């Protein structure tokens, strides 16, 4: 149960199945993986939205959604994420398991068919996407990009990354830039579609009950004999000559502080787990150094958390604080990071972080969405550890392994969003 079975259709095209009958839902994720660039990121994101809006058989939004409602409120949607300096474009379908369908229909095969038809047989008129569909989705992507400003915590993190990685592709928004979205033409979209089908690495994952054979055959007939190779690699920066500092003002009542660090890029599954563990020790739990010292002891904030991005080799620490406490908070955070670097790590801290991280890995096995995300985040890794394996690795990580990784952490950027 919950084991991943991988079939290789050809070089760069994989088909993964997690056969699991515990759930009342099923899930299918077609991932297209391609290097990030400002222009193509925007094209791919808009394309994914246009594709999931209609298809040949259900040529407009309303008819498609009414069909999804008939299929017991199934969902069909795009998801775009960055994995290192790559863009992963997902087309997803999730819906009721066949055993619970009221009229005995096979929801899973209908959904698989819909998802394939959306990708392979989009609604094209004279070789172009529907003009109205494109404009509708362009508007919504622009609103999505704009509304990143509405969420102040997320916005501050985004700005920190943009400044920290300004010379790296990683600074590109997952939806591309505003200007690039505005500039996309019909031709751009059609070539993005062809480019993704011909060149992007493809990773399909089917999770839940039901027979995967039907989808497998569709993917095989489309992709067999068409190998592709992911070009390029994520830029890893390990030296920082000078800490970048930036502050912006905003009409907010709580200021935000984000500190961006460079870490060692974790090569192996073991290093990945160790790096995540280090992040939990620092600021991933209510017993972490940052929570206990910056929040509980000094009452400086409500949250002070750390997040490691193993695919980029960076770590971010963020907090929401009073404007006149920004400096004090930065000092308090730096003090905790330095303490860890100097070897201040108790057995209890290590054990508690291990328990919590293991809990998170094992819990993900109880959710199709969590399993899917777990693997999507590792889409660039040849053979990622399963959640179960990661939990076992976590158990065996030593104090020295954590300290070794901690010694590589370097502060790169301090960004604050300052309230008035």
């Amino acid at each position, binding site marked *: 149960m919950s084991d991943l079975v991988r079939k290789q259709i050809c070089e760069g095209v994989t088909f993964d199945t997690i056969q699991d009958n*515990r759930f009342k839902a099923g899930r299918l994720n077609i991932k297209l993986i391609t290097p990030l660039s400002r222009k193509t990121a925007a094209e791919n994101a808009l394309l994914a939205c246009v594709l999931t809006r209609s298809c040949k058989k259900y040529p407009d*939004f309303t008819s498609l959604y009414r069909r999804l409602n*008939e299929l017991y409120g199934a969902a069909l949607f795009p998801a775009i994420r960055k994995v290192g300096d790559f863009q992963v474009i997902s087309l997803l379908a999730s819906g009721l398991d066949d055993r619970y369908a*009221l009229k005995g229909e096979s929801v899973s095969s209908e959904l698989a068919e819909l998802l394939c038809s959306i990708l392979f047989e989009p609604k094209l008129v004279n070789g172009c996407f529907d003009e109205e569909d494109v404009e509708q989705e362009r508007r919504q992507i622009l609103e999505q990009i704009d509304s990143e400003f509405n969420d102040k915590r997320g916005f501050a993190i985004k700005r920190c990354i943009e400044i920290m990685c300004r010379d790296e592709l990683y600074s590109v928004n997952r939806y591309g830039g505003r200007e690039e979205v505005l500039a996309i033409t019909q031709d751009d979209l059609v070539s993005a579609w062809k480019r993704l089908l011909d060149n992007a690495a493809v990773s399909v994952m089917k999770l839940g009950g039901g027979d995967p054979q039907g989808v497998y055959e569709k993917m095989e007939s489309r992709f067999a004999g068409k190998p592709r190779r992911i070009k390029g690699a994520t830029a890893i920066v390990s030296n920082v000559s000078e800490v970048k500092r930036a502050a912006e003002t905003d009409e907010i009542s709580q200021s935000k502080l984000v500190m961006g660090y460079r870490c060692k890029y974790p090569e192996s599954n073991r290093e990945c787990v160790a790096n995540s563990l280090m992040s939990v020790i620092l600021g991933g739990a209510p017993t972490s150094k940052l929570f206990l010292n910056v929040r509980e002891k000094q009452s400086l904030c409500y949250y002070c958390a750390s997040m490691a991005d193993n695919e980029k080799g960076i770590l971010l620490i963020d907090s929401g604080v009073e404007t006149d406490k920004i400096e004090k908070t930065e000092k308090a955070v730096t003090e905790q990071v330095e303490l860890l670097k100097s070897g201040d790590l108790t057995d209890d801290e290590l054990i508690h972080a291990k328990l919590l991280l293991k809990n998170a890995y094992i*819990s993900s096995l109880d959710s199709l969405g969590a399993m899917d995300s777990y693997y999507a985040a590792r889409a660039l890794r040849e053979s990622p550890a399963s959640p179960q394996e990661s939990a076992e690795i976590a158990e065996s990580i030593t104090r020295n392994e954590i300290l070794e990784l901690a010694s590589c952490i370097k502060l790169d950027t301090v960004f604050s969003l300052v309230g008035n």
Partner: protein
Amino acid sequence: MGLTEITNERLGEKYYSVKHSSGLRILICPKEGFRSAYAVIGTRFGSINSSFINNGRKITVPDGTAHYLEHKLFESEEGDAFSQYARTGASANAYTSFDVTCYLFSCTERFDESLGILFDLVRSPYFTPETVAKEQGIIGQEIKMYDDSPEWRVNINLMQAMYSEHSINKDIAGTVETIAQITPEILYDCYNSYYNLNNMVLCVAGNITPEQVLAVADSKLTKDEPSVTESLMPEEPYKVKQDYIEQTLPVAVPLFSLGYKEDGGSGYVTSKESLCTAILLEAFAGEGSELYRELLDKKLINSSFAAEYIDGTGYRYISFSGESREPKLAAEIIKKAVVELHEKGISEEDFENARNCTYGRIARSWDSPSAIATDLINSQFTGREIFEPINLISGLTVNDVNERLRSELDPENFCLSVIKGIEAAVEDKSI
């Protein structure tokens, strides 16, 4: 001890319910093959219970007290609960809503120990002037974080504009000023009035057995004599207080929430009423509806648009909310559609389509221990047994839904809440 088994054949699910000798109601849903377990204990005490009578004594507390108490219960004389959970690896949290306060954890091992910690947490209040003062800074920052959240503000403002008397019009966490008045005595008063096991519910789902849960309850819980605390709720008029409210915040895309206030009733609505409303809203404003299409075509909404029904002690309303470049125009179109809806009702075809969708949603909610435990505890608080919707849904007719519509979405009783950007970038064309 009488363990009642409640089953549902269509879903192939069952849960157990028992009134523990301590007075605590316990619901347990074992999920075969699952690795995690989720437990949540809650009491019927939320932000709206700010005035009450306990043992003949009338007590009124500052706004935000229930939420403050939630934070402070994590500390006991022996230290804080987080450090105890750290030893079991459980991931713990808590939340306070208008009506209830809940404490929860999820884990994949050492469940019994974590459940013991959860019981200790809610059974050993420890408040001193120092520990209470320490939380002012932390909660003060939590309040400020929410002050900057447009999604939060658009709803809280809607409550303030719709309700004149009911304390749902106050922010759950209070304000920096009100929480400064909170003392250990106030927290003890609230604790003693509402944290009686007879007023509480424990729900557990996932990788556990009833025997396991009851054994921990037996060893940890002493009996509470039932005590009655009467919550004082002011009389709320039927009409909305005002029909428009706006706030300026630094947002790039404005937000709106259009609320339709209903008669507050005497408590929660029934399962049938709640289900009919869910189908009604799906048919009327779901992604497959004409209204959704019209709003999209006119570029007035995006995928953040949602329709919701909210009911609680003395309040009931429907809200339509989302981001919009032109909130007023979006609201005008919804209001017009509401008037037409009352004239025509929901069609048979739209009803069937929405019913299918609703059925699938209910069935799929049984895939996650956290969702099951949360639904179970809500079922106790609302009095809506958890299998009732799935049992009722196939027998429902379009007439049931249209009948329900009569007491909802009063075209004369709405309120629009808008969060607009600082540069007044919202150019509203009125129609």
